[in-house]
């Protein structure tokens, strides 16, 4: 099992310790939070200093975002000896990844893994529907497409319902599991940036903390919002931590 640390900013390198052999760098959900070339260079130095592998995480992208990440990928792919991997969350970015020769992993936005926390608690008498919800919506035709495009890995959330191991066993991919945050949904802009055309908060959002816990009627699990994405927490991943499990990488997101 490989352990990775997921960070969004270069100053979060302080969270690293020698349990982690890889660093995920970048924001998987927000296209407003693009790392700078300088910060990426600093992270490359950090990785090479500590003999770490590196994964660049990209979100869904506007044209401006594609241009910005293209510069970063070109920089990284030109570095000798750097075993670079990119988490892809926008099909428009695929040709550039292919051209640059980096390894590609299918991000959580493109995996479409069911993760509504209500699915874990809902049962009909005599019917266990949970197995259906443990399956990720990846089919044979899509698998063939991904293999053609040299996509070798899929990123998964550690959903409360679990993942269908037998489905993963049948797939020709490696899998990463993100803990403890389970991705749920996102909005276009960070919620408190005031850029969305919705009247959410009557007061100023400026004094609100970066992470906000909310209660939603009909959902027992506390939901939290970070920037533009909604998550819930599931820290239990013991079931994946065995030799024979197709998940071969655990990605931790830690917060200072």
């Amino acid at each position: 099992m490989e352990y990775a640390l997921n960070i969004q900013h270069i100053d979060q390198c302080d969270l690293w310790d020698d349990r982690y052999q890889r660093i995920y760098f970048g924001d998987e959900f927000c296209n407003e939070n693009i790392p700078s070339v300088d910060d990426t260079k600093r992270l490359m130095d950090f990785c090479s200093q500590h003999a770490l592998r590196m994964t660049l995480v990209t979100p869904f992208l506007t044209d401006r975002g594609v241009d910005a990440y293209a510069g970063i990928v070109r920089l990284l792919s030109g570095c000798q000896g750097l075993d670079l991997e990119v988490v892809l969350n926008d099909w428009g970015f695929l040709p550039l990844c292919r051209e640059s020769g980096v390894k590609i992993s299918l991000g959580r936005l493109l995996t479409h893994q069911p993760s509504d926390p209500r699915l874990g608690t809902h049962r009909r008498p005599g019917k266990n529907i949970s197995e259906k919800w443990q399956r990720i919506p990846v089919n044979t035709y899509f698998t063939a497409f991904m293999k053609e495009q040299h996509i070798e890995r899929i990123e998964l959330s550690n959903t409360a319902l679990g993942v269908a191991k037998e489905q993963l066993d049948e797939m020709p991919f490696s899998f990463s599991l993100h803990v403890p945050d389970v991705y749920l949904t996102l909005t276009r802009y960070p919620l408190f940036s005031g850029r969305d055309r919705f009247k959410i908060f009557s007061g100023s959002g400026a004094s609100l903390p970066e992470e906000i816990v909310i209660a939603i009627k009909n959902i027992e699990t506390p939901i939290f919002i970070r920037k533009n994405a909604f998550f819930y927490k599931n820290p239990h991943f013991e079931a994946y931590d065995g030799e024979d499990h197709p998940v071969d990488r655990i990605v931790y997101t830690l917060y200072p």
Partner: protein
Amino acid sequence: MNIVVPIHRVQDAESLVAAGADELYCGVFTKDEWCDSRGSGCVNHRSEVFSNLNDFSQLRRLVKKAHDLKIPLSLVLNEFYDDDKLCAAMEQVKQAYDCGVDAVIISDIGLLRYVREKGYDVSVHISSCANVFNSHTRAFYKNMGASRIILPRQLTREEIGSICAGGGMEIEVFILNERCFYVDGFCRFQHGNITKRLGAATVLWHFNMWLASAAAVIPRKILQVMHRYVVNHDHACCFPYGIEDGGEPAFRPQKYFNDPRSFLYACGACALRDLKELKVSHVKICGRSMFTERIRNIRFVKDAIALSEQDIPQGEFVAEVRGLAQKYRKYCGDQYCYYR
């Protein structure tokens, strides 16, 4: 600029076209699929039985009627599928092709590959659930054989322009109804059928075939109230929420991420002139599950398009569209505005 309109009953086709619809789109949710997929949703993004046609004989009749009226019809298959559900979706493609539909609206790359590999002679429209946020993704889908992109709701006019600029594809954008706060294709909230609060009532609402048939005779005002009540409490799009307040989350039911009213009645009519300049070819009226106001919606958009073609100053155009909104009893304001 063409108006694309949802339909869920064969008998509505003539009135929708007479009001100004240039294209129709629909889903099919058969009784077999309903029995098989109880609890896991259907092969399109609307798990309510009454938002869909309920068998392929209805689709065949609808295709014939649409073609008699000289307009195209698209079938919606805008979900993401594992192998089990892909089989159901492929069966729908096959049946729909036999019925003569003009296009399929797709979000799953596997299904898109299947349609193209099997050589089905139908156009492929890429659903807003596929999240085309940039011109590179537009080119990606064009290379895969799609002829139209339906853009997500959250794009700005400038971003729409940059996607349109590449040319070579039809571009469709939302113009009326159901503007969700969340980005549709990235949302993992399960829509429908898992509420606890309304329990059996919601199951009835989403899955009862009898209710689907009865919807044709239930007074529309009552249906609208029922729909709104369920939407507000079952769909994550309109959940009320509370922010944690020193430990325990404080529930404040007056707060909504999407106010149900602005969610249901969103509008982008005053951007029509810009959208046309940006080379948007189609505008979509959303809401396959809406029972009321459909004729009024089409007339409103039709009139607004006609206004956008007049040689009047921009300020006057916007004022005229607002006047139209009042005339057609549509809401207007920041929280309703698609493309402010």
